[in-house]
């Protein structure tokens, strides 16, 4: 490949102009440029979704020879329209960290020894067989993530649920969006958002509920700000527990006390009803009212069980329930002024305004995560502001395929690719497609994530295969679960791309292919499936997670269920998986189309994507003649829930007098195992820190950069203080980003979870501070 100097300079000139245009005209697209550059011979550009968050930005990966050398936003991808965030622009560098795992390793004595990958795969298969024969099928498990590609998760579920007969399949998406799922299921009977990112260009009001989008979903936040800049009638409200960059960029920042968003949401509904801003036509035709159990616990004890018991109620009973949440009463609970609550209600209640609510971890990592999801849906349902362009309650995700792999493939203990293990018809469908006996699929779910790691600690689980995730950083109450994994008769397999605290506890480490070193698909937050080709080869003996599972499955005697060749397996898996979702409610695009486009939204019916579900104008699954049809529920009606305010599992007291809130920063993705190996991102944010309110810092006698010890009933971490930095917590709260493995803040957090979703609450526990 030869490029003359003049052509190179002309290419640089064009790049410069395009970059300048991008900064002056946000969202500008030069699709023809891709073709011209490709023709120049210097670099070829291939489409892929970004490796990092759940936004699903399309990127073009520049390849020279066998190496990915550049990245730019894909102007043909409707998600980001050519934009990228700072992580996306550097994503290809994550492939080339110096300490990439290239060879399989097996623990021999106290040492990890490199072995041929085939030997490691033999050992894994024999260990699975041995464990099942000694302690039963439910003593082996697999734990993946929303970073699994769709084929990764599909073959994991097929092997463990279909072939081995255990429902010990979980994914770390349980830690980040399980409450969103149960919120959808309880309100609508079907999972995933009804709207799409195009809502951003239609909405007049955005309310971000505990969601620092400026750092966590920066491309969507940019789209929101661009929409506000273009139009005169757009308002952004940040409703949160601490001040962030999102608060600074919003028109109004409202702070509430931890967990009291429940009271605020109920008070908004109270005001909507009191002012008769209810969309009665919509409510009468499309909703019903319900209540469930209260005082439902926090799941901090082993073997915790909870089952809700929904009961029908009337609108009048719901109205009576809301009397506990007048704006004045809610002010006393939440700290949000009655005036601000009334203001929020007036925005939601104004029939001339289109309102979109965004949320992510703030509402989902919440001991009442399902409830707060229900309550925000209540607001949209009461006002009829749902399933129409710009009117959208929108739950965002944090991982690139949390929706695609975990929610759609169903890599959770109770799930199947279509439906749940408890349902015989769903099991029959799975058994037929998987070509396994129906009796293989156990009708009882086993362990959700926290309980799975408790079972590992107790010894109920003896074998765990961890792929594409780093639970030895992310599990709450981490000390217990790390100690459990290290016990003598536990066998831990870890497939990953870099050494992490999780590979530290492994008995076998498998070198995994990463992102565009393999073919695969992700599914983003707006029901968009995004295919990527194998664009560059992986180093050493790296192998895709899908193929690792196939190799082990064949060693276990399941050649019939995993018959595909290496040159075709992704296509074959996709077309098999797609059978689970056939029909207008969830039909997926064919493989050939996914390869061609920068993402396709489901339901994909009669050659068309569905942008707004449950609205007959857009969604062919709606009953003929209906305007809206919430077909996840048998009667086609969405549920409005009476859910009360209940406090967090652990609140500050005299001994532990601060709230601890944890989260992320823009520079690093998740536990930082990839982004901390990208020099520019690492230099920009080299280590974690603890944000302290300036007045609290003054009381402690601490200034920025001084060391502070954060102590809870479970552990402690010492780290540098940040005062008046990019985020400022209110008095009585500290905030710590969790990306830095040198400061394992989850040794401090509490493993309490939402009893319905089983998603832990990483945002609220009690700590005390000591100046070091």
């Amino acid at each position: 490949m030869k490029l003359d100097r003049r052509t190179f300079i002309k290419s640089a000139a064009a790049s410069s102009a395009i970059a300048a245009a991008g900064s002056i005209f946000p969202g500008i697209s030069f699709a023809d440029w891709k073709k011209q550059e490709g023709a120049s011979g210097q670099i070829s550009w291939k489409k892929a979704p970004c490796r990092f968050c759940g936004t699903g930005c399309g990127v073009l990966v520049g390849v020279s020879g066998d190496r990915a050398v550049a990245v730019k936003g894909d102007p043909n991808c409707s998600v980001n329209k050519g934009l990228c965030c700072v992580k996306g622009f550097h994503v290809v560098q994550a492939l080339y960290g110096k300490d990439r795992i290239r060879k399989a390793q097996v623990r021999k004595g106290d040492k990890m020894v490199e072995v041929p990958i085939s030997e490691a795969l033999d050992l894994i298969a024999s260990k699975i067989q041995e464990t099942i024969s000694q302690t039963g099928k439910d003593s082996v498990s697999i734990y993946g993530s929303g970073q699994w590609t769709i084929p990764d998760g599909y073959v994991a579920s097929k092997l463990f649920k279909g072939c081995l007969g255990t429902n010990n399949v979980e994914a770390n998406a349980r830690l980040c969006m399980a409450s969103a799922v149960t919120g959808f299921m309880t309100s609508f009977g079907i999972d995933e958002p009804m709207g799409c990112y195009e809502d951003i260009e239609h909405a007049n009001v955005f309310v971000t509920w505990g969601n620092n989008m400026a750092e966590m979903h920066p491309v969507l936040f940019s789209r929101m700000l661009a929409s506000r800049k273009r139009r005169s009638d757009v308002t952004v409200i940040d409703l949160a527990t601490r001040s962030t960059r999102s608060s600074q960029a919003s028109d109004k920042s409202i702070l509430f006390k931890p967990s009291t968003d429940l009271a605020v949401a109920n008070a908004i509904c109270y005001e909507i009803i009191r002012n008769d801003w209810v969309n009665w036509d919509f409510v009468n035709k499309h909703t019903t009212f319900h209540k469930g159990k209260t005082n439902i616990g926090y799941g901090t004890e082993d073997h915790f069980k909870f089952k809700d018991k929904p009961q029908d109620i009337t609108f009048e009973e719901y109205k009576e329930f809301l009397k506990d949440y007048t704006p004045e009463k809610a002010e006393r609970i939440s700290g949000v002024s009655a005036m601000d609550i009334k203001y929020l209600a007036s925005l939601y209640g104004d029939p001339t305004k289109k309102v979109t609510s965004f949320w992510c971890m703030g509402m989902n990592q919440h001991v009442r995560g399902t409830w707060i999801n229900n309550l925000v849906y209540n607001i949209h349902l009461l006002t009829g502001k749902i399933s129409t362009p710009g009117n959208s309650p929108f739950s965002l995700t944090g991982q690139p395929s949390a929706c695609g792999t975990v929610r759609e493939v169903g890599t959770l203990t109770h799930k199947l690719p279509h439906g749940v293990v408890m349902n015989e018809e769903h099991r029959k469908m799975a058994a037929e497609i998987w070509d396994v006996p129906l009796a293989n699929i156990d009708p009882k779910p086993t362990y959700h994530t926290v309980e799975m790691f408790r079972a590992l600690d107790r010894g109920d689980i003896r074998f765990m295969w961890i792929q594409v995730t780093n639970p030895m950083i992310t599990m709450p109450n981490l000390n217990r679960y790390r100690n459990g994994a290290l016990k003598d008769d536990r066998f831990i397999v870890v497939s990953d791309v870099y050494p992490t605290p999780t590979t530290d506890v492994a008995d076998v480490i498998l070198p995994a292919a990463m992102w565009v070193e393999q073919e695969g698909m992700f599914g983003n937050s707006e029901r968009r499936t995004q295919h990527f080709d194998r664009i560059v080869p992986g180093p050493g003996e790296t192998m895709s997670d899908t193929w690792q599972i196939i190799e082990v499955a064949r060693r276990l005697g399941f050649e019939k269920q995993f018959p595909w060749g290496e040159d075709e397996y992704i296509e074959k898996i996709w077309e098999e998986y797609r059978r689970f979702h056939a029909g207008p409610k969830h039909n997926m695009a064919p493989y050939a189309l996914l390869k061609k486009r920068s993402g396709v939204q489901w339901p994909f019916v009669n050659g068309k994507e569905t942008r707004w579900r449950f609205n007959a104008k857009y969604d062919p699954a709606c009953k003929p003649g209906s305007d809206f049809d919430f077909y996840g529920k048998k009667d086609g009606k969405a549920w409005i829930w009476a859910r009360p305010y209940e406090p967090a599992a652990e609140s500050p007291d005299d001994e532990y007098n601060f709230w601890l809130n944890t989260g992320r920063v823009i520079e690093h993705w998740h536990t930082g195992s990839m982004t901390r190996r990208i020099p520019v991102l690492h230099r920009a944010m080299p280590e974690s820190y603890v944000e302290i309110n300036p007045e609290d810092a003054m009381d402690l006698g601490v200034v920025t950069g001084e060391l502070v010890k954060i102590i809870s009933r479970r552990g402690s971490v010492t780290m540098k203080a940040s005062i008046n930095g990019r985020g400022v917590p209110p008095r009585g709260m500290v905030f710590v980003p969790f990306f830095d493995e040198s400061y394992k803040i989850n040794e401090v957090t509490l493993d309490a979870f939402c009893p319905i979703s089983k998603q832990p609450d990483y945002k609220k526990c009690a700590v005390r501070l000591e100046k070091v």
Partner: protein
Amino acid sequence: MPILSYLALPRDGSMDRLCADLSAMEYCEIIPADNQEVVVLVTDTPDEQTEKILQETLKKLPSLHSLSMTFGHNAE
């Protein structure tokens, strides 16, 4: 042998005309934006004299509203 790049903005409603005019001119290559009325123009002339003449010609284009330089290189 100057190589320069510009962002060219058309007069109202003249995007297509501007693209046609620039495409027809010697030493000019264009990359039109597909969602906004902006054109990237790259010029590659053999010498400074030709460059000067080209710039004069560009300034007189009726379809052109403004021209902002983003890159300049002159190999002697």
